């Protein structure tokens, strides 16, 4: 079991806001500069918890802490939020990790 799986399982139970912030930050930071909407982040958390033991229950049960966690991280300047127009023509609020310096083109993190 890798570390992100272990962390994701926390979301199954009644996670605290601080735990939820760590989980959300792990997902957003894992995008390597890419942006994710709230529902997309929730799905990632669900997928990670689904990979865990069966007694984890449903990852979506603690959805109520998703936006407080996201907005708190944004308020602390850890992540950045922006409105983007999706392929469906609808504006979605997306989140990406905030970097101190812009990433140099062609020198992305190896996958």
């Amino acid at each position, binding site marked *: 079991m890798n570390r992100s799986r272990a962390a994701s399982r926390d979301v199954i139970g009644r996670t605290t806001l601080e735990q939820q912030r760590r989980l959300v930050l792990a997902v957003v930071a894992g995008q390597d500069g890419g942006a994710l909407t709230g529902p997309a982040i929730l799905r990632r958390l669900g997928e990670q918890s689904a990979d865990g033991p069966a007694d984890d229950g449903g990852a979506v049960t603690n959805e*109520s802490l998703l936006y407080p966690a996201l907005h708190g991280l944004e*308020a602390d*300047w850890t992540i950045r939020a922006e409105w983007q127009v999706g392929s469906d023509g609808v504006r979605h609020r997306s989140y990406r990790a905030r970097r101190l310096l812009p990433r140099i083109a062609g020198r992305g993190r190896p996958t």
Partner: protein
Amino acid sequence: MIGLLVILAGLGVFVTATVAIVRRAEWRLRPGPRNTAGLASPSDDPVGSYVDRVAASLALPAADVRDVRAELLDHLGDSIATLEDEGFSHDDAVREAVGRLGPAPELGRQLSAAHQSTRRLLAGAGGGVFAAAGGFVVGYLGGIGASLLMFIGAFLAAGLLAKVGFAPDLTGPDNGSTANSLLISMTIAVAAATSIRFAVRTSAGLSRRAPKTVAGFWALAGVVVFGWLAIFGVSGQQSWYSIPIELAVPFIAVAAAFCRIDRPMPHIARWAIASFAVLVIVTVAVLGMATQTTTGSDAGAFNGPEPDMHFDLVAAPAPAAWLGEGDLSDSGSSEATGSFGTTFSIDLSRGASANWHDLRFEAWHGLPNGDGIDTRYTAAFLIQPVSSEDSTLTATLHFERIRQPGSWWVFLTGVGPDGRRYSLDNSGGGTSTFNGSAWDWITAPQ
């Protein structure tokens, strides 16, 4: 000249940056076309109703409420679609999606707390201080402009009244001290109000708090800083007309922090700059014309006794037996040292000084234009014992701490061998105006 340009350019950049940061912070406070903060509109749509209830429980600026609303609607739309794909009926999907976000008031409370982070609070405090400093500059310029506008209006009104035979003396008997003191006090009052208002609106926007939440802090800061500045800090000409305005500055700061603070400030920068430029030009023109028609000067020193100047009111002249010719030198020399008083020095020969004790400088009210002692007064209004070093007698008289010194004459007096006080020398006369803080004026000896 280059230094002046650099200062003006720096001031311009500072004011521009201030207005920019205030407007940027204020953008968050502006009510949008559908500001539902504080309102829970009844809606048949359970999703809309839920989002309205969340928005109603948010203690955030309007722009943030709009963002939260839009994001929650987007999220719930996505959730409902996903649940329907999983086989839920529409109604069940709506119920489930809304239920997963939890009770609306709790979500609103958590979102409010998330937005109002310590980092944003610090940003709000820093931005507020910056905006307060810039607001003071903007308000100071605005206060000067408003005061000049008022004075121009008063002069125009006086001109019209003069045509019908009633000519009020706007400069007054105090050579314009009242007008100057009003200009200073009104400028400080406007600057304080602008500064506090800039600070409250900026810090509220940056810290994501309602303006009334932060108004108390800035009101207290305004009372302390601007109250001190108006009452103790700013020295200059004062009058009984300006003192109430200066004493009211702390209350003005509180009013600026609370009164209609939820309303956006009018940003009239371009109009203000244009109006200010016009005002300066008109004022310079008016003052130029006024200077051409003014004759004589009411300031400066005047020396030399005249036979009918009533110097005998001060004391009888010192008998020649105790003060011979040549015993005094450098007589009447004075050194003006601005707000630190006026120093008088007289050299008295060693031989003559043995005849005199209790030497002191006395200031007596004089008539305008150096026409001698004002006979309405029977005593000196300022007395300072001399300090002697070798043969030089020195004393500093603080005319600037007397409310209405006007014209004065200063004499060196001393008690002779017969126990009577005599006037040894006339040290010259002059005119002065009060120069101090509001507190100095209130506590002045007369």
